[in-house]
């Protein structure tokens, strides 16, 4: 993507002085009046005015209950619920990534049995709504009150009560994780397929086993393709956890804020409180994703160019870089607008 384009967007009111100052440095540089964009300024002013009106109005409207927002934002119940949401996300995603990896490998394996199982799994879990699945997992303990082991139609060897699905937190992790695994497997599969066949071949020719080839050659390269959409999935999962109300589990962030507002009759401030916590988590995840992406783009040339600048800090500095001058290799033109390389659309599917 064009760095210059990104910078121009962040800095619409660029002063022509920058251009002339840089132009003085090199004899052949073109001195010209930069193209004006008057409509950008007009639209920006109109939108800012509209936003100001909305904010002023909202600040005075009693329904927003700003005092309550301040009161509950660091409420112990809320922060504990935020932890529950966070751990739900982490457990569900870890499970989804492991199962997704397995499913992806099964789908790519030459074994037709494994292939069909993986296909069937994805068909079911991607083809039904996650809300419906969560409701189902919530009543599994009623359908299967006990687990029995033994040969069918004979006296069972052992019967143990179904303790898994009576624990609603574990049920929620299972429900969310199994659903997400179907999506993760498609992401992993796309990543594994994106690695050139010659890579596995070269690795095989070096006497490396299939497992070593996967682990040291194919998967590290597939990561580059897998990481960005996985980051999106984590962000999406964090928000999907609010659906565990279907189980019904009500100790997560959304459940607790609803619970409090049911007592205090102040729904809006508690929705705002929950939203602020969700936003905090997604923002932290976005930053984390940025650094993981950088780590896994080794050897693609992009990272080396940044390293060449000798200023690793520039990549995350929010100061708009002067772009009017000739972009020297490794110059400030390398700097990115924060968040730009993430390419997140916050796409959800819940």
């Amino acid at each position: 993507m064009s760095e210059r384009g990104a910078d121009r967007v962040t800095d619409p009111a660029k002063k022509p002085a920058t251009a002339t100052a840089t132009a003085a440095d090199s004899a052949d540089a073109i001195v010209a009046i930069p193209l004006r964009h008057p409509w950008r300024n007009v639209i920006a002013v109109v939108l800012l005015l509209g936003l100001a009106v909305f904010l002023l109005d909202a600040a005075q409207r009693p329904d927003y209950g700003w005092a309550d927002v301040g009161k509950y934002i660091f409420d112990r119940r809320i922060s504990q619920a935020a932890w529950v949401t966070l751990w739900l996300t982490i457990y569900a995603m870890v499970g989804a990534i492991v199962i997704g990896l397995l499913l992806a490998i099964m789908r790519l394996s030459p074994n037709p049995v494994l292939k069909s199982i993986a296909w069937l799994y994805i068909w079911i879990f991607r083809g039904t709504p996650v809300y419906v699945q969560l409701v189902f997992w919530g009543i599994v303990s009623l359908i299967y009150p006990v687990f029995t082991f033994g040969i069918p139609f004979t006296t069972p060897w052992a019967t143990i009560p179904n303790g898994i699905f009576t624990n609603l937190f574990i049920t929620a992790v299972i429900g969310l994780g199994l659903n997400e695994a179907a999506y993760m497997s498609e992401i992993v599969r796309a990543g594994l397929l994106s690695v050139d066949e010659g890579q596995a071949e070269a690795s095989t020719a070096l006497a490396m086993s299939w497992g070593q080839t996967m682990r040291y050659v194919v998967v590290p390269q597939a990561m580059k393709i897998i990481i960005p959409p996985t980051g999106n999935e984590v962000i999406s999962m964090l928000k999907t956890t609010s659906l565990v109300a279907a189980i019904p589990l009500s100790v997560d962030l959304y459940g607790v804020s609803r619970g409090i507002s049911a007592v205090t009759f102040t729904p809006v401030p508690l929705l705002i409180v929950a939203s602020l916590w969700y936003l905090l988590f997604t923002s932290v995840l976005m930053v984390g994703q940025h650094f993981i992406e950088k780590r896994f783009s080794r050897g693609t040339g992009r990272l080396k160019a940044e390293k060449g600048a000798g200023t690793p800090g520039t990549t995350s500095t929010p100061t708009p870089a002067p772009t009017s001058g000739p972009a020297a290799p490794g110059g400030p033109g390398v700097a990115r607008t924060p968040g730009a390389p993430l390419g997140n659309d916050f796409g959800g599917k819940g």
Partner: protein
Amino acid sequence: MTGVPMVLAEKVSKNFGSNRVLRGISLQVDPGEVLCMVGPSGSGKSTFLRCINHLERVDGGRLSVNGQLVGYRQKGDKLYELKLKEAAFQRQDIGMVFQRFNLFPHLTAVENITLAPMRVKKQSRTAATARAMELLERVGLEDKGDAYPTRLSGGQQQRVAIARALAMDPKLMLFDEPTSALDPELVGEVLDVMKGLAKSGMTMIVVTHEMGFAREVADTLVFMDEGVVVEAGPPRQVLSDPQHDRTKAFLSKVL
């Protein structure tokens, strides 16, 4: 030197579906010998090379490396397919260099070279790295150890790929059109490394279009067409006095 040939192919055949790519290849490569294979594209040269280290399965005939059947084990008069692990073990003695280099782009030159020795032969990082630097010096790239493949020219990449194959201390080196993907001015540096390797006594099978290299380095030149060996012999003889019409037709186009 033992009397066992490094590579012995007897009527080797290979099909891709109904397409018969190899139709009975018989040839022998002795230890220390350099064999060059030429022929039009689609003649089965690369497939034969890939059969030698079992990247492709042989469908018919017998193919053995250093006295060992490739990809199969004989018990009585029955053949059993090797397990993946056993096939991998056989490949330890065979290095391969690809047309498109196939360096691992997420690893530096040194890491490319040390990966297999460390993971397959369980060498220590220090030992493997020392050996890698030695090999990089041998291919003239001692200052490029920390470079990622994308920062290297095609010729440099191919030389790293040769060093990577040599790091496993192979007894046999296979080259699959090693200079075909290179810019003309970079071909020489790779051929020089290969010449040095040949001089050091390495057994080599080289699929190539470089007739000059074949003439200078090869002990035997094999001309293949449509899955069969049409003609084989000392390169000077094959190149200057081809016996077969198909050889003549091919050479008149490339020389």
